[in-house]
C-alpha cells in the first residue's frame, strides 16, 4: 500500500494489544508508530522502557527493544541504559501513578541529571491497571474505589514538578490531538537531554471525560492554548482571546478591545530561567486555559556529557587495569 514500505522501518510489533477498546493509549501508540519511522533512528537502536500500569504495556506494542520494568522505576532503568549505551534512543513510558507517586524520586532525578531520555507521562488522572483508585493527579472530588467520599487532596502538577526539577524540555499534548501530539513527540525526540512530555490520556473505564475540556471539539478551543516559540499566546474558537503577563502572573484578556496581540505574552521556550514557563504551567482549567505545546526547550550538558566516560581499547585498558592492581605499596618475593 505504502510506496516506501520497504525503506521506512516498521515499528509495529505483532503482540496483541491489551488495552480496553477505546482507551486513549491507542491514539498515542498510533502517533508513536507514525513518528518513530521519521526520526532516522532504526528500530533496533530504539529502546522503550516502562514501569507498571496500563500505559506501561506500551513497549510490547512497538517492534523495538523494550523493557516492561517495575512500578515507578523506568527512569532509573533508562538512566543506566543510556549511560552505558549513548548510541541508543531511549524512551520512557509512564503513568501518573507510576511517575508521580511511587516513582517520583526517579523522575525528578532523571530530569535534573538531563539524561537524554524521552519521558512520556500518560496522565489519565487515575490508576488504570489496578482498577480505578485516585492518583496524585486526580482532581479533588473524584469518587474512586478507594475514595468513596471523593478524592480530597491537592493534586501534583506534572509540568510544575518537571520545571522545578530543572528539566531542559517540558511539553504537553493530548492523546487524540494527533497532529499536535505527533509534533510534540518529534520535538521531544529531537531534544538533546531529558525530555518530559505530559500527555492527557482518557481512561474511559475509570475516569471518563477527565480531559473533555481539552478534547471535546465543541469546547476545547476555549480551554486550551497551543503555545509556540516566538508566538503570542492566542486562543479561543475565534482566536479572540490571549494571555497577557502581569507582574502578578498571567491573565486572560479579550483581543480587540483594550488589548491586542502585541500586548500578549510571547512564548519563549529558550528562556534562561524557567520563571515564565512555571507561570504557564500554572495556568489550569477551569480558571485558565491550559497550555499545550513545548513550554521549555533549552540546552544543557547531558548526563553523559558531564560524566565524560572513557572507553579505552582493550590493550590500553589492560595496561590501566594492571596499574590499578599494582596500586599502593607493593613488594616482591623472589
Amino acid at each position, binding site marked *: 500500500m505504502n510506496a516506501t514500505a520497504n525503506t521506512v522501518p516498521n515499528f509495529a510489533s505483532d503482540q496483541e494489544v491489551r488495552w480496553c477498546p477505546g482507551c486513549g493509549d491507542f491514539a498515542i501508540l498510533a502517533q508513536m508508530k507514525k513518528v518513530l519511522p521519521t526520526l532516522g533512528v532504526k528500530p533496533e537502536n530504539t529502546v522503550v522502557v516502562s514501569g507498571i500500569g496500563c500505559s506501561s504495556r506500551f513497549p510490547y506494542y512497538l517492534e523495538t527493544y523494550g523493557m516492561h520494568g517495575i512500578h515507578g522505576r523506568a527512569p532509573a532503568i533508562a538512566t543506566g541504559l543510556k549511560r552505558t549505551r549513548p548510541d541508543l534512543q531511549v524512551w520512557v513510558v509512564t503513568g501518573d501513578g507510576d511517575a508521580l507517586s511511587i516513582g517520583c524520586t526517579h523522575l525528578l532525578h532523571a530530569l535534573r541529571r538531563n539524561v537524554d531520555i524521552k519521558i512520556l507521562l500518560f496522565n489519565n488522572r487515575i490508576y488504570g491497571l489496578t482498577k480505578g483508585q485516585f492518583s496524585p493527579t486526580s482532581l479533588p472530588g473524584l469518587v474512586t474505589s478507594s475514595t468513596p467520599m471523593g478524592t480530597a487532596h491537592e493534586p501534583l502538577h506534572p509540568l510544575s514538578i518537571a520545571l522545578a526539577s530543572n528539566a531542559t524540555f517540558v511539553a504537553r499534548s493530548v492523546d487524540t490531538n494527533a497532529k499536535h501530539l505527533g509534533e510534540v513527540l518529534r520535538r521531544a525526540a529531537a531534544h538533546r537531554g531529558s525530555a518530559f512530555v505530559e500527555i492527557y490520556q482518557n481512561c474511559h473505564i475509570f475516569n471518563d471525560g477527565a480531559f473533555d475540556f481539552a478534547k471535546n471539539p465543541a469546547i476545547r478551543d476555549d480551554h486550551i492554548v497551543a503555545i509556540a516559540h516566538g508566538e503570542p499566546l492566542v486562543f479561543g474558537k475565534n482566536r479572540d482571546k490571549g494571555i497577557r503577563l502581569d507582574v502578578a502572573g498571567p491573565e486572560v484578556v479579550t483581543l480587540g478591545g483594550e488589548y491586542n496581540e502585541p500586548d500578549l505574552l510571547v512564548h519563549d521556550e529558550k528562556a534562561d530561567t524557567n520563571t515564565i514557563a512555571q507561570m504557564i504551567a500554572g495556568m489550569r482549567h477551569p480558571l485558565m486555559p491550559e497550555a499545550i505545546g513545548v513550554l521549555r526547550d533549552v540546552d544543557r550538558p547531558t548526563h553523559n556529557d558531564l560524566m565524560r566516560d572513557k572507553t579505552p581499547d582493550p590493550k590500553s585498558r589492560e595496561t590501566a587495569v594492571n596499574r590499578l592492581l599494582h596500586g599502593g605499596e607493593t*613488594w616482591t618475593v623472589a
Partner: protein
Amino acid sequence: MEIDEKVRESQAKSPVDVEAVVIRFAGDSGDGMQLAGTQVAVSSALMGNDIATFPDFPAEIRAPRGTPAGVSGFQVQFASRQIMTPGDTVDVLVAMNPAALKANLGNLKAQGTIVIDIDAFDAKGLRLAKYDENPVENGSLDEFQVIEAPITSQTRKAVEQLGIGHKIATRCRNFFAMGIIYWLYGRDLTATTRYIDSKFTGEVAEADKLALRAGWHYGETTEAFERSYQVPAASQAPGTYRNVTGNEALALGLMSAAHLSGKDLFYSAYPITPASDILHRVSRFTECGARTFQAEDEIAAICSAIGAAFGGAMGTTGSSGPGIALKTEALGLAVMLELPLLVINVQRGGPSTGLPTKVEQTDLLQAVTGRNGEAPMPVLAPSSPGDCFNIVIEAWRIATKLMTPVMILSDAFTANGAEPWRIPDITTLEAIEIEHPKSPTGMEPFRPYDRNEWLARPWALPGTPGLTHRIGGIEKADGTGAISYDPLNHEKMVKLRADKIEKTALLTPDLEIAGPESGELLVVSWGGTFGACQEAIVQAQRDGLSVAHVHLRCLNPLPRGLGAILKRYKTVLAPELNLGQLRQLVRAKYLVDVRGLNKVRGQPFWIGDITTEIHRLLGQEK
C-alpha cells in the same frame, strides 16, 4: 634516612625474636587511629610479615570525644608465619585517652603492654570515660606493663620548631604513638615517611614526620621498655604483593572481571556504610573505563544496573543492610529478566539500622530466599579480603554463563580488614567468554527465552538488527518470551529458573576438606569467618583432635558433594555470626543435625571462640 640506620643499630643491640604481634591503637574518632594501624600494617607487610587488620569504629563521624562510645580502634597483627586473623587478644594496646583504655582493656593479653598518653589522663578525661579513680594510679593495671608516655606534650615539643598552631601540633599525636611502636617492633619508617610525603605537604608533612621520629626516639631513649622485638619475615610464595582490604579487592575484582569479559563496568550505588567505599574506589577507575553512578536511592541503583545489563554492560551494584532490603523488588525483576547482574551485600549488624559499622552474617537467608515468588539466584561469599577479588570474577563468570543476577555476601570485617595479596597477572587470568547472538540470516523470529545447554537464554543486545524484543517482569512464555498466564508454562518456567540456578554447582570448584576425610567433628563455615575457623582447626588438629574443615564459598546452591561429606563425621558444627542461618539451610537440605556456634555481637569470631567449642564438643574442655 638517618633514623632508619638507627633503627637497625638500636635493634641490633638486643631485639628479641617473636613470631606474631597484635597491636591495637585506640582513641577518639579524630585521633587518626585508622591511619596509624594501616601504616603499621603496610610497613610490616613491606618487611615481609604476614598481616591482618581489624578496624573497629563507631557509627558517628566524630563520636563524642573522650567517651567510651566514641572510641575508634584499629587492630593489626603482623607475623613471621601465615596468619588468618587479626588476633584474638592484643599484645600492645595504645590508648590515647582513658576512654580508649576502658573500652579496650578487655582485649588485652595477660601481662600485655599498654602504652597510654598520660597527658590525656587528666580529671576531664577520666570523667568523660566515667572512671571514678585514675586506673593508672589505683593499681588496677598492675598485671600489665603500663608505659605512661607523655604523648601529647612530647608531640607538641617535637614540632615546636615549626611554629605551627597547637591544633595542628596535637593532630600529629598518632604519629608519635606510631613511632613508639615502630621502635618497639623494629618497623621500618620508610613506607610511612613516603606515605606522609604523598598525602600531606608543607608543615603538616614536616610535623607528622617529626612526631613519628620523636616517638621512635622516645622508645629508644627512655627506659620505659626493657627490650625491643623483631618479627622476622614470613615465607611467602614468589610474586609481587600488596595489602588489600576486602572492599579494595572487590573494586579491583569488578574492574578486572569487566576487563576479562570485554565489558564496560557500570557500578551503581547509593552510599551506605560499609559498602560506600567500593563506590569511592571504582569512581577512581575512570582510566580503565569504569562508569560509576551515585543513584538517588538503592532502588535506582539496582534498576540502573539492570538497565545497563540490558544494554550489554557489566551491571553491578552494592549496598548493605537496609539498602539491600530496598533492592528486594528489583532483584525479583532481574530474576525474571534473566540478565546478568552482580549485587554485593557488605553485611553489617542488623536488624534495621542496627550496628552499621560492625560485622554480622545475618543476611544469608535473605539472600537465598528473601524475595516474593520463587526467585532463586546464586549466592557467593568471599572468605577473606583478598578472596573478594576472586569471588567477583567467579560471580561474573556465573552471572554471564547462566544469565542470572548473583548475590555476593561480604561483611564489614572482610570489607575493612586487610591482608597481603599476591597481585595476579591480568594477562594470564582466564578470559570470561560471552556470546551475544548475531543478527539472524533467516526469517525465523528471534526467541529471547530459548535456552542453551546451561538453560541460559541469549543475551541479545539493543542495536542488533533483527533481534528486537521486549522483556519484563510478567511471566513469559517459554522460548518466545511473550506474556503468558498459562498455568503449565508458569510451572515450567519456575522450574527452569530453579534448575538453571542449580547448575551453579557445576561452575564452582569442588569442596576441599582440610583435615581427615572422616572422623569426629566437621566444621562447616562460610564467608569472612574462614580465617578464625581455619586457625582454630589447625590448632585442634595439632592438639590431636579429629577435626576437619570445609568452607563454603557458594551458599546457593549448596556445593556438590556436601551431603556426602557431612555424613562422614559424628558431629557437624557451623560457626556463624548469626543465629544459625547456614545451619538452617544445611539441615533442611541434608537432614543432618548440624550444631551451631553463634555469635551476634557485631564482632568477628576470635580463634578461641571456636577452639573452645571444638574442645567442648569433643569432650576435651580446654
